[in-house]
């Protein structure tokens, strides 16, 4: 049940307590994190679905700032609780700020006093990544980590550059859903090349092409390989490594957000048969070719809620992710 209020922080706190008490059938667990979400109307449904995954697993205070077309900004509160296996209530307190044309909702001091002190603050940024955006800059002081989805907001190389800038220049810890989606492919690749002979073979890689995968995903994959294997970007399309030069071909357009059904990664070596990783069409990816033993692993597209869950227990950037992005950009 949501209650609409004016921007009165004390009243908002009282109302949150009252609503949570009504919603919680048993003693509620302590809140352990704040989650700030910056979204627009088009992503509201997806956001709600993702928060539904968090419900019952982490007791949290959510402050959702949504851009709207209304003349005036407004604020509403609600609470949802879920009984955990020990019959304790795990609650999400929600403060929903509709930022109207008056921009009052986007003003930091409209909602920042509602952040609970002494517990982590994660900021899920779903808007355009502009490092000069005042609201984004304010998170330097307010948030422990910024969570983005470079795939959803992909606008070419610039997107990845802005992510690095957020971390390096603005000293913000950053997590990226696109990086997490890459994990099954990284695992399959690591397993495929898990022998001295095949590791050596990678030194003679001459072409790596990726089709049927989203652009940020593809670039991070190449960047990851480069950072792990010591390749350096020489031009837009070529990397130089210990064994020579490798040409990387990646898609530019967002043909698909889903790499599960159409992915093909081809490793072409100086000598010998190529090795391919491709979707099997049934939720897995298969690696075969050359003289390696065929292998497969699950290659599903995890729901956004699951990706969010993976991000809200730690307040640091994963260095492998940043290394991969920098390697792609040629900044390592």
């Amino acid at each position, binding site marked *: 049940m949501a209650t609409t209020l004016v921007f009165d922080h004390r009243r908002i706190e009282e109302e949150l307590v009252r609503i949570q008490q009504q919603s919680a059938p048993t003693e509620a667990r*302590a809140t352990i994190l704040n989650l700030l979400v910056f979204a627009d109307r088009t992503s509201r449904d997806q956001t709600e679905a993702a928060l539904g995954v968090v419900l019952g697993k982490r007791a949290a205070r959510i402050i959702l700032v949504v851009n709207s077309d209304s003349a005036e900004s407004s604020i509403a509160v609600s609470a949802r609780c879920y009984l955990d296996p020990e019959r304790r209530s795990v609650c999400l307190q929600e403060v929903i700020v509709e930022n109207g044309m008056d921009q009052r909702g986007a003003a930091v001091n409209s909602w920042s006093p509602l952040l609970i002190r002494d517990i982590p603050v994660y900021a899920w940024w779903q808007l355009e990544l502009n490092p000069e955006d005042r609201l984004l800059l304010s998170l330097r002081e307010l948030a422990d980590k910024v969570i983005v989805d470079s795939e959803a907001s992909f606008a070419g190389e610039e997107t990845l550059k802005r992510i690095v800038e957020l971390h390096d220049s603005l000293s913000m810890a950053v997590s990226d859903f696109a990086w997490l989606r890459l994990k099954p492919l990284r695992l399959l690749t690591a397993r495929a090349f898990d022998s001295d002979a095949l590791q050596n073979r990678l030194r003679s890689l001459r072409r790596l092409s990726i089709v049927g995968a989203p652009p940020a995903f593809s670039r991070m994959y190449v960047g990851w390989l480069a950072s792990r294997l010591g390749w350096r970007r020489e031009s837009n399309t070529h990397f130089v490594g210990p064994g020579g030069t490798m040409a990387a071909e990646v898609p530019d357009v967002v043909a698909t957000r889903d790499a599960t059904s159409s992915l093909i990664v081809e490793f072409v070596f100086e000598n010998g048969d190529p090795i391919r990783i491709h979707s099997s069409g049934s939720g897995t990816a298969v690696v075969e070719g050359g003289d390696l033993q065929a292998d497969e692993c699950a290659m599903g597209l995890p729901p956004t809620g699951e990706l969010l869950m993976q991000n809200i227990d730690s307040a640091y950037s994963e260095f*492998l992710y940043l290394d991969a992005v920098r390697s792609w950009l040629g900044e390592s």
Partner: protein
Amino acid sequence: MAHNPLFAGLESVQEPPPFAITIFGITGDLTRKKLMPALFSLYSKGTSRFKVLGFARRDWKGEIVKNKAQEMLEGFPGAEGELLSGFLQRLDYVESTFEGKEGYRRLAAALSDYPNRIYYLSTPPGSYESIIKNLGPLPRGDGYTRIVVEKPFGRDFATAQALNRLLADYFREEEIFRIDHYLGKETVQNILVHRFGNGIFEPVWNSRYIDHVQITVAEDIGVGTRANYYEQAGTLRDMIQNHAFQLLSLTAMEPPHSLDAERIRDEKVKVLRSLRPITFRDIRNRTVRGQYDGGFMNGQEVPGYREEEGVAPDSRTETYVALKLYLDTWRWSGVPFYLRSGKRMMRKLSEISVHFRRPPLGLFRNRHPALDQNVLIMRIQPEEGITLNMNVKIPGYTTDMRPVNMDFAYGSAFGERTLEAYERLLFDVILGDSTLYTRRDEVEESWAFITRILEGWRQDDQSLPEYEPGSSGPAEARELLRREGKRWRRL
């Protein structure tokens, strides 16, 4: 091969190499309640390259074992549809007695495609010898061979040592995994994190600041249908020798210099070696045993222990034990460790409480002995967490004080079901990580200490005191602390 840089950051999701696990006694309760759900859970989380073989006397061949497994997983989260059928396809069965050599030949044939093999002994201890002697000569795969042995691991020092010797005839120590499922509990593992992952506790974790430690492993149930086993075991063997001693070791050990399994186990063994023996002369001063009486619990009438089915009317098997222990080390010299465990107690509860010394000077009025001590409580189950009990000022004109609890929120907001102990332990066997398993010397040291007490009790003809069901144990246990000016924590 040399280190594969592509695996960096993926260690936690790395799938283990293919393996086959043979469960001896698959038709029993442990498989139904713990092992099958744990294996399914591992499968559902991505461990897929394995085969499960049952080895038992009943006719569960072919589809029967799959149907039985499906029954075992009834109601288990996710056990349906393609996921369940994918798991069931991995099951197979060898019908055989544990003595039958032909059965082991068929087992060897069934395992031939699996270089990595795990043998899980989920049988009564009486069957261990046959199984081990038949497994030993079986041809091995090209990978690893591991054997998992459930508790009880022996029933005294001699039998534990004999079992260790028998295992050592056929398996190397690193291939032997002795289970104590308490070590699989998240909260037990958290003792190490609590002590060595925080800088504030270790400086005061010694005799200068700690007055005494209490360790409680209490159950609210009676022996139920386990009287046959329990009459031969008793609480000292069933709970103290293993679970309570694990909690003692983790609480009292020195910091290891790494998280390597052997370094941690080295430190735990040192604790057991430093236990001051309880001789026959000390039996009545430092040990208490009792039996639960008949009465009422939760509104129901319950029988006394000697009235339970399968228990001899003149049984001297204890259902309650309290011990006063000392560790002769620099860190713990003079600090008593009080351990207690029992059945039909007020509630099911396991915890470690560390009672700190009183302030050297009593500055405040209304100073009451019970108010002075700070207590750090590590709750193992239920209500997992850590509480620090401290004194604060009562609002008002005076400086009177009262105790309050500060709860450290370990897991207090996690609404997820924590990892089942057996799931964690099985995964560790698969990975070959023995940190959460008991080493040979650890088992023998604990049995050496316990066996002395058993011998002392055998020679002591004092009758066993009874205690009311739903209470905190016999009055003699309260006296054990009262004469030192201390009290047990209320259950």
